């Protein structure tokens, strides 16, 4: 009898485990049977993962979109940054959210794995004018000739420099905006101050994260346009890394500069510009608002980052709306994405921000929407701030926004980024030369890309 019990127990366990294994599967749902119609009355649940109405720009657009969807569509938010594991597990289990809000850099990986669906039908059915969106933003969400995400927001870099320190060192903004690397190295030497350790950073090229920017400024690119060939060992990229590392080495090395940078009150009144401890750096445009809020009286000069020919350029990033495979309500998801990113939504959001900034006695510095038409109309709402300094910041931001580039989508984006950042870190830490580190990284990145692209072909 005991043996029989044991046998039945084993059978029950094996059966339970076998049943549980059914929880793993693949989702191949498409929107083939869905009709998208801008005039259709919609209903049903619309759960959105990765988006939160955390500020007036998001809240205003969300409120307007919910109104336009109608009371029959019940919107619920899973707030916070998109948790990739949570999202992919939900898709694999056949219970995905109806819509996700993702970093545009993730779209290629999601599309390659079939976790999100192409939006061609959605775009044509809802009459979404993709011509309005900025080309690099659209490029970043286009995979295998299909658009997989509706882009929104643009993050661009601008050159920020401490005017007082520049004047004291006898250098100009043109010397630190990237247009002349020899002048920049010279300015770095003049601006940097050492007191045994680092007392003032001269020029902070913000490596490793801005290597794509410096490489592009030197005429190079980390990845081929089709997203299939790693170009990390391209001489223009190697030279860019050597230049950036040289700026750190001239100030005592990356370790010392980084430790000093980390000790700054980056978001507070004790920031590096207010305390005169940084000469110049490229930085994303949102930092303009931070500086304007916490240290409006600091003397700061702004320009775009420029390539070695003197032309403005910026490495753009942003977010995108994507519809997961297996979404129960793709029609509402598509309408939501369209409504959130249309021009009127941005104008309403801009007005909300203007109202708040006016109430706080602060200037409205604009919003970069990822939608070119919206950008133009929002910019028309920007009033002179009464300060040449902050007006120049806005000017630089919009000029950078008109001159962006991006890395093409690819199915191994996270791996690719980790590989080149690890290589840059090895060089920054003095463990490797730029040439050797980037050659090694290029081989590894190519291997990862080849495998990822081959997987797509194998899975059809």
């Amino acid at each position, binding site marked *: 009898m005991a043996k029989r019990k044991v046998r039945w127990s084993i059978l029950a366990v094996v059966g339970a485990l076998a049943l549980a294994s059914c929880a*793993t599967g*693949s989702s191949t749902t498409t929107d083939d049977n869905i009709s998208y119609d801008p005039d259709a009355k919609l209903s049903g649940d619309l759960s959105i993962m990765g988006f939160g109405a955390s500020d007036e720009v998001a809240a205003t657009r969300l409120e307007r979109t919910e109104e336009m969807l109608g009371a029959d569509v019940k919107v619920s938010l899973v707030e916070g940054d998109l948790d*990739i594991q949570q999202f992919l597990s939900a898709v694999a289990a056949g219970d995905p959210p109806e819509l996700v809000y993702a970093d545009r850099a993730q779209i290629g*990986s999601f599309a390659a*794995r*079939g976790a999100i669906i192409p939006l061609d039908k959605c775009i044509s059915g809802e009459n979404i004018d993709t011509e309005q969106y900025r080309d690099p933003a659209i490029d970043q969400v286009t995979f295998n000739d299909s658009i997989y995400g509706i882009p929104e927001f643009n993050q661009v870099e601008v050159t920020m420099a401490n005017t007082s320190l520049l004047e004291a060192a006898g250098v100009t903004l043109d010397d630190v905006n990237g247009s002349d690397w020899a002048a920049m190295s010279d300015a770095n030497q003049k601006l940097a101050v050492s007191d045994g350790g*680092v007392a003032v950073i001269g020029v902070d090229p913000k490596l490793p994260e801005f290597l794509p920017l410096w490489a592009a400024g030197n005429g190079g690119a980390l990845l081929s346009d089709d997203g299939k060939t790693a170009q990390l060992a391209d001489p223009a990229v190697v030279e860019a890394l050597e230049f950036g590392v040289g700026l750190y080495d001239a100030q005592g090395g990356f370790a010392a500069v*980084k430790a000093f940078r*980390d000790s700054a009150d980056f978001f507070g009144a004790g920031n590096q510009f207010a305390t005169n401890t940084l000469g110049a750096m490229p930085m994303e445009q949102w930092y303009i608002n931070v500086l304007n809020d916490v240290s409006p009286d600091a003397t700061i000069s702004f320009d775009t980052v420029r390539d070695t020919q003197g032309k403005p350029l910026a490495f753009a990033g942003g977010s995108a709306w994507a519809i997961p495979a297996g979404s129960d309500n793709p029609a509402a998801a598509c309408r939501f994405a369209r409504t959130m990113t249309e021009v009127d939504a941005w104008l309403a959001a801009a007005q909300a921000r203007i109202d708040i900034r006016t109430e706080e006695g602060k200037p409205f510095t604009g919003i970069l929407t990822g939608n070119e038409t919206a950008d133009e109309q929002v910019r028309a709402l920007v009033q002179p701030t009464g300060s040449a300094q902050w007006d120049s910041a806005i000017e630089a931001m919009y000029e950078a926004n008109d001159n962006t580039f991006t890395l093409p989508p690819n199915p191994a984006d*996270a791996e690719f980024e980790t590989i080149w950042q690890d290589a840059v870190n090895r060089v920054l830490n003095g463990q490797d030369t730029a040439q050797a580190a980037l050659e090694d990284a290029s081989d590894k990145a190519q291997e990862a890309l080849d495998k990822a692209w081959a997987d797509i072909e194998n899975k059809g």
Partner: protein
Amino acid sequence: MAAPVSPAAVLAGTLAGTQEQGGFTPPPATPARRRARRRNFYSALLFLSPWIVGFLIFTLWPILYSAYLSLTDYDVINAPTFTGLDNYVELTQDPKIALALANSIFYTVIQVPLHIGVALALALLLNRIGQASGFFRTVFFLPNMTPPVAVGVLFLLVFNGQNGFVNLVLGWFGVAGPAWTTDPNWVKPGLILMSLWQVGASVVILLAALQSVPKELLESARLDGAGFWRQTRSVTVPLISPALFFLVIINTIAGFNNFTEAYTAFFGSGNSTYSNDAALFYVIYLFQQGFEFLHMGYASAMAWLLFLIVLAVTAVQMIVSRRLVFYEGGTQ
């Protein structure tokens, strides 16, 4: 009078349905007694079933499934594709595996003795200060209540090479502290020192062990002329060696699984620029492969390799412990 029988022993005897276990001799198996025993068996199963179900679904099944996944190519979305031992072969060819393992071994080999040494020193101190030990025990334990993520952030502040607290203190003694958070040579030593922040749990365990050391043995040693250090070395440490051994085992396993603090400080969201090879511990690399690059099959193979390594290390520790650990009332 019969020797007392523990409830666990009784249950073990009942569940196994044997006549010999449990340290007692059951009465002859009449049909009525067999029915009663069966009822007991089912009752026990019923009460244990929540744990059994939980164990099967949340422990045994993931273990077995990860063993299966380690033989596949699996990206979370698409169905796993069987690839045999490919992932294990790849483990031997991936230079980052050796790097990450070396980092984890370095951390464990230095951190475990240091952690236990500091914990023992603090416990010995607390054991001598009488009633005030309760207050200090609480103080030492408080950092264990700090979330590991916060400890990771704290590490960057306290060990900042420019104006962190540690270098400030070193500066008082004329020592120019290193760049703990940015110099690859000092990243791991910094993390090891930071881990001592959470030594409190071990102090509490050792203090409990110290308080169970028979006073008469220490008194005898004192009468024989043994000083504090001799008493500690020859009486106290042998008597608390089971607790020390327990700490060695769990801290070794924790050392190999070191993740949260280092990940938060060097690899977490918004900290990608901090990442460097010096802080790439094995479980961090496993996490990257599984949850960032979505190579779940490879990550599963990594998990099994780690399991085998920890199993082997623990087995060696168990063997060595036979010569070094003294069990009161036992034969060793």
